């Protein structure tokens, strides 16, 4: 690793914080997508479909 000079703490903190936040953002986005998809699948498994998508089962 290169030498970051006397203020290494701040640099590392900044990068670590941003990495953490971005990771959380990505995680949340994916998690939200999964959760919604699985709820949708559960509903569709019960035979509920959009009315516009033809007569409901």
């Amino acid at each position: 690793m290169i030498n970051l000079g006397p203020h290494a703490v701040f640099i590392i903190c900044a990068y670590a914080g941003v990495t953490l936040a971005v990771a959380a953002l990505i995680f949340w986005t994916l998690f939200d997508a999964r959760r919604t998809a699985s709820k949708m699948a559960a509903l569709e498994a019960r035979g509920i479909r959009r009315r516009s998508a033809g007569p409901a089962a």
Partner: protein
Amino acid sequence: MTTDTAPKPSFWNRLAHPGQFVALTRPLLWPLTIITAALFIAGLWFAFFNSPEDYQMGDTVRIMYIHVPTAWLSQFVYGIMAVSAIGSLVWRHPMADVSMKAAAPLGATFTALALFTGSLWGRPTWGTFWEWDGRMTSTLVLLLIYLGIVALWRAFDDQLRAARVIAVFTLVGAINIPIIKFSVDWWSTLHQPSSVFTMSGPHMPPSILTPLLVMAIAFTMLFLTLHLKAMHTEVARRRLMALQRQAAQTGKTA
């Protein structure tokens, strides 16, 4: 007093249908992800291994590579929200609603990050984490506006009606942000004639400019990717809520 479902221009028509929008843009997700990742790798390599330390700021200049992109995004995202708000009010474009909603938490996060990195940068250069400086303060106010919008989205239960109301508020905010910025500058010069450090303009050496640019594009791509994904989720969530409501009303469980 006639109410017709207004015919929409055909280009919009295709994008306006949420299902079609998702179908059209889903193939973009993977390429976007890959481009974003590549840009980040390049940018970080530049940032750590291929950029000299600034003669004036020392190694802390490396914070700039994440500070400036997040700060830039904090404003860019609001721009996206404002444009979407116009789309939702004027053209009643359903995807504009979705885009507006998906952007708000992302914008709030990037704004928080700009504040975070900025204050971490401020400590070694100015000797304090927080100074009531014009730019910092107006960024803080921007964060508060973002959080207000997020709270507003959560407070509505009917998201369809929420969209147009929030669009109005977003636009009011958009008009107001320049005023806030200006007034805060005026205020902080009024109270603090001596600014310890004036943020340097774009006259910086290319060795610093290159990583900065790469990182800025990388962050922007990251936003676009996440935004698109969040929009897809939002479309699905709306369909889900409609289905649940419908199931509840008709009592059909099988």
